[in-house]
């Protein structure tokens, strides 16, 4: 941890100690759950659940999605507790409840850990333990592998750490089937490959923030030119990967057409980042990457609901 971050952690904790009497608002607890991240996590989990073969009681399905949401939020809360020092140094995050002194660190970590455990136990007991264990793995990966181990140590932080965000489709699928198959594993791989261009686009126009906080994001360590090249390379791996489910009959024509069209736009945005060195191109890629993942998964779900995915359940893996 850098000296600036260590000093900032002490300052944040001292501020919070002074404010112990002031109780945090409900909105602070909501902010701790990172609702915007949660929405994409929930949607990808729901997509995994909806494309899985077999039946699930609507109430059990609701509990499964609720547990994915709470597990994601809990991981976010623990992440914010651990990163309160560097959050205070970045303009994007300094108004969060902990660096702003509206919540005591002990409250945040207790809230996060309680929700994280509750989500796994609830998933295991009410849905099934395959989904429960996958949820526990996602939480542990985000907290220990990404937040604690990688984020402050390597510019590959979001490449490896991105695996945490790729778990939800597998969890949704396992909630229905109690096992895994090739399609949810491909969805894991797609989100894994999607994460680096998504985050590095953001990091390109926020590199000053990350440099101030001592976070070794790729643009800070290797510079914008290397980052732009890496964005293009990962995009060139991502787009063909999204075409695989259709090629293997795991998804139907709606998904095939959507993946091809959306992927072409994604590549165009990634190429634009190579040539347009202003903030505009990475901002556009970042915004489009979110829409891209939503639409790609929506097309997969539409295919499944229309019964156009002939071999979605192929290559099931009994766990």
């Amino acid at each position, binding site marked *: 941890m850098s000296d600036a971050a260590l000093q900032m952690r002490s300052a944040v904790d001292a501020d919070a100690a002074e404010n112990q009497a002031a109780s945090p608002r409900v909105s602070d607890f909501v902010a701790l759950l990172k609702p915007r991240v949660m929405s994409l996590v929930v949607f990808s989990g729901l997509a995994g659940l909806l494309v899985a073969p077999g039946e699930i009681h609507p109430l059990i399905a609701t509990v499964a999605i609720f547990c994915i949401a709470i597990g994601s939020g809990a991981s976010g809360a623990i992440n914010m507790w651990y990163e309160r020092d560097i959050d205070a140094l970045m303009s994007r995050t300094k108004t969060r409840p902990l660096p702003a002194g509206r919540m005591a660190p002990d409250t945040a970590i207790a809230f996060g850990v309680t929700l994280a455990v509750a989500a796994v136990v609830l998933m295991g007991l009410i849905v099934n333990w395959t989904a429960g264990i996958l949820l526990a793995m996602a939480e542990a990966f985000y907290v220990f592998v990404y937040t604690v181990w990688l984020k402050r140590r390597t510019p590959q932080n979001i490449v490896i750490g991105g695996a945490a965000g790729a778990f939800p489709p597998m969890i949704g699928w396992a909630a229905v089937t109690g096992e895994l198959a090739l399609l949810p594993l491909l969805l894991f791989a797609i989100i894994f490959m999607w994460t680096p261009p998504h985050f590095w686009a953001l990091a390109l126009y926020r590199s000053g923030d990350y440099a101030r906080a001592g976070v070794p994001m790729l643009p800070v360590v290797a510079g914008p030119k290397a980052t732009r*090249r890496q964005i293009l*390379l990962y995009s060139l791996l991502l787009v*063909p990967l999204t075409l695989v489910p259709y090629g293997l009959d795991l998804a139907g024509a709606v998904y095939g057409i959507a993946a091809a069209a959306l992927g072409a736009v994604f590549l165009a945005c990634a190429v634009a980042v190579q040539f347009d060195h202003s903030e505009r191109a990475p901002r556009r890629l970042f915004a489009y990457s979110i829409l891209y993942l939503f639409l790609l998964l929506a097309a997969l779900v539409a295919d499944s609901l229309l019964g156009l995915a002939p071999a979605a359940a192929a290559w099931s893996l009994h766990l």
Partner: protein
Amino acid sequence: MARLDKPQNKNLRRRNIALLVVLAGLVALFYAVTIVKIAGNLG
């Protein structure tokens, strides 16, 4: 970080271009297969 000398830089640049060409080829191949399959499905 140690700076690369001119031949090393040239070599790295060649490898990057080769990787880019291979990946672009992969994209073209997958798109070709997808388009043929979609045409088959619609036809």
